[in-house]
């Protein structure tokens, strides 16, 4: 680091509990979030495997699980969606990588409120324990899907799993909301107030911008979900009628009247659509960072990328109604939501164009992080292209309850975001743990996962167009659905192979953490601040030195520079070659 101001060096806590369990260090907390999400993704993946197996062989009795009845299938569906959306897609990119790298990338020694940061993680952990507990209570896990639509979710007698299991589900979501709000507050304050000298907003890496905008979305969206959840708990346990109209269950009139299930849908999707961007925006940031680094070129249109992310975040709050075209909303409202949804295509296209522009005529280094970043772009485009179809009310009404929607959101929100996480993992593990991951196994993992992902989710689009309904636990009784079973077979086999390939990733990760070759301070020849400090970073991130920033974050192939990259901390003048 050529220019720096000497500062004090923090002494980190020495005891095991303070250092690794209740740590205030954002890096340890980031790693805690990362491993929590890694645990959650295996649980979620296992549930999806059970569903796929059940769809092919509905009569089979599985070890540990036993018979999968229709209601069991719905429980698996609910818990798979909830765990993946909240505890994986929201937790790893923001809580994990964001926590670890946001302070370092802006030149700060920690988050603005370290105690709040620790509380945020442990609150998330409690939320995870509570939702897992739903499997083990009387009646089991709830049936109402990750969207929790009432009246099914609001009536304890609506089915097995809708008793204590559903209460635990709602409680877990409410706790998760509190944790996310604490995290968002910390991210925003840290970004706004703790940037190093010279780190102007327009010099922040796009990863920081993505975490920053994600935090704004979280701050505004999770409060609404919290309110909605409280109303749902009251309907279930206190006899109120916010969401439940006059309803008959098993021939018995329930005590509710006058409530509106659509009220829940509005509140839920006001959170739910921004949640899509909470999941995907950090992936966009990571992809931008990696594409620029491994293309050895500046990111194409830095400012356009920033404004596109801001526009995506803004429009994200305007389009919740496109999830509700089936609810019988006014055609005028549907038109407005449809038009606004189409508008999101513009900033999304800008981002895609700029990613391609970054790679155009570049001397690309096809290492594993880059492969995953390219995979992210591929999945973002593939999943995104079906979005404008579903944004049309007339088409959505045809496709809404089919596998077309499942394929769409798994590509764009699920797997694209997960590819962003894979890219981030391969890119940053050397900095986090001081060891390189195995490149060969990384590439094998990438190619199997990319092919497997497309093999699982592309056929779902055809399945949906052919009328393949989602949420059905078996297709044996419906003649026209029988003809679609070969596609289901193909997807299930693809899922089994793809899930098996994830063992390659986990083994590579843990082997590398302990036995991988030692990483240098800047193995990828990147430019941002985390690559200016030691590997792994010291407790106060910069070893008693406060970085001073002189350059933008993606100064690659700079004419006249000594190397093909210029660190953000390189002084303003004097570098020669």
């Amino acid at each position, binding site marked *: 680091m050529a220019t720096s101001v*000497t*500062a004090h060096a923090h002494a980190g806590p020495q005891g095991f509990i303070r250092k690794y369990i209740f740590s205030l260090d954002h890096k340890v907390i980031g790693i805690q979030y990362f491993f929590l999400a890694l645990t959650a993704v295996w649980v979620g993946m296992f549930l999806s495997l059970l569903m796929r197996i059940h769809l092919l062989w509905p009569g089979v009795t599985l070890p540990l699980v036993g018979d999968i009845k229709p209601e069991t299938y719905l429980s698996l569906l609910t818990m798979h969606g909830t765990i993946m959306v909240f505890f994986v897609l929201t937790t790893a990119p923001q809580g994990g990588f964001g926590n670890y790298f946001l302070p370092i990338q*802006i030149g*700060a*020694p920690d988050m*603005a*409120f370290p105690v*709040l940061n620790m509380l945020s993680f442990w609150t998330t952990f409690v939320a995870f324990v509570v939702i897992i507990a739903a499997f083990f209570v009387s009646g089991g896990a709830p049936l109402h899907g990750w969207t929790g639509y009432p009246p099914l979710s609001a009536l304890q007698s609506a089915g097995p799993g809708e008793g204590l299991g559903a209460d635990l589900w709602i409680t877990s979501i409410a706790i998760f909301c509190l944790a996310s709000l604490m995290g*968002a*507050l910390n991210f*925003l*304050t840290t970004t*706004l*107030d703790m*940037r*190093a*000298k010279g780190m*102007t907003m*327009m*010099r922040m*890496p796009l990863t920081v911008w993505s975490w920053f905008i994600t935090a704004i979305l979280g*701050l*505004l969206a999770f*409060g*609404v979900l919290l*309110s*909605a959840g409280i*109303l749902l708990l*009251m309907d279930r346990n*206190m006899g*109120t*009628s*916010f969401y439940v*109209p*006059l309803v008959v269950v098993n021939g018995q*009139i329930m005590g509710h*009247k*006058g*409530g509106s299930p659509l*009220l829940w849908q*509005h509140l839920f999707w006001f959170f739910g659509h921004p949640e899509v961007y909470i999941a995907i925006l950090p992936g966009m940031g990571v992809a931008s960072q990696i594409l*620029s680094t491994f293309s050895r070129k*500046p*990111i194409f249109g*830095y*400012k356009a990328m920033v404004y596109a992310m801001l526009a995506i975040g803004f429009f994200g709050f305007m389009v919740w109604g496109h999830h509700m075209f089936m609810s019988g909303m006014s055609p005028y409202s549907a038109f407005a939501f449809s038009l606004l949804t189409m508008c999101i295509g513009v900033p999304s296209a800008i981002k895609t164009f700029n990613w391609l522009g970054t790679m155009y005529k570049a001397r690309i280094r096809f290492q594993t992080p880059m492969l995953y970043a390219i995979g992210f772009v591929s999945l973002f485009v593939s999943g995104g292209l079906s979005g404008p179809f579903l944004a049309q009310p007339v088409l959505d009404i045809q496709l809404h309850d089919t596998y077309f929607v499942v394929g769409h959101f798994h590509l764009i929100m699920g797997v694209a975001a997960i590819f962003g996480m894979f890219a981030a993992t391969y890119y940053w593990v050397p900095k986090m743990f001081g060891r390189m991951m195995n490149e060969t196994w990384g590439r094998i993992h990438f190619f199997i996962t990319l092919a497997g992902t497309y093999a699982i989710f592309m056929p779902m689009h055809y399945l949906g167009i052919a009328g393949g309904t989602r949420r059905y636990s078996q297709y044996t009784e419906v003649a026209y659905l029988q003809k679609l079973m070969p596609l289901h077979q193909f997807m299930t086999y693809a899922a089994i192979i793809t899930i098996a390939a994830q063992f390659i990733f986990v083994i590579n990760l843990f082997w590398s953490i302990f036995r991988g070759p030692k990483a240098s301070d800047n193995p990828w020849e990147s*430019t941002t601040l985390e690559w200016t400090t030691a590997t792994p970073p010291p407790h106060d991130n910069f070893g008693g030195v*406060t970085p001073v920033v002189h350059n*933008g*974050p993606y100064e*690659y192939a*700079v*004419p*006249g*520079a000594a190397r093909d990259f210029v660190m953000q901390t390189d002084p*303003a*003048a004097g*570098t*020669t*070659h």
Partner: protein
Amino acid sequence: MATYVPSRPGDQVGGGGDVPRPPNGGGDDGRYPDSNLPNYGARLRRARLGLICAIATVSMVFVSLTSAYIVRRGLPTFDESSRTYFRDWGSVQLPWLLLTINTALLLISSLTIEKARRNITRSAALAPVRSIPGISLDEERSFPWLGVTILLGFGFLIGQWMAWGELKGRGFFVNTNPNSSFIYLLTAAHAVHLAGGVVAMLWAGATSLLHRPVEGRRIAVDVTAWYWHFMAVLWLYIFALLAFVH
């Protein structure tokens, strides 16, 4: 041999090349980098920024509850006996006198905590002067405004508890009708947030007893005071909602 001058406009295409780069005072952990002494100004700014974020999210909670209130109020329900639709919003006899007294308590507490905030701001400003050798200033013995505010805060919470008791006494429970459901919900949600403010004030008071530096205590009192003012404004909003939309 070319010289690289990256700050020249247009030279940097990798992001933000043509922007000025003023130092923004960040990048620290609330300490002066050269002396390792606490930078209370930075800490106060950071705490206030965090508070603004917290207020934004609490506002979203109440905005969503308000939208639910308005939507639910306009919904018809089906009457199975007459086979017709009617509005089941219902009426509630609120204990207006008690609620008005509570409102007065909260507004007065907002004034008292503002007094506490200004007093400690002055003390914090004088703290560096007091630390100069040879300079002696009389210790200010100010009225315990923070303690008074805590008492008024507890008074408000007790008053709300009494108001709920009175509602029950009049036969209005949480599930009596949608109107009563929202009254309990909105007032309870506000009370929970306000109780958080009371806890924060107790913490600020405890730091005084622990003889923490006045500059640090000032941050706790300052942020709590602004939060408390927000609670007062939020209560006026809820009061108006219940009074006029009700």
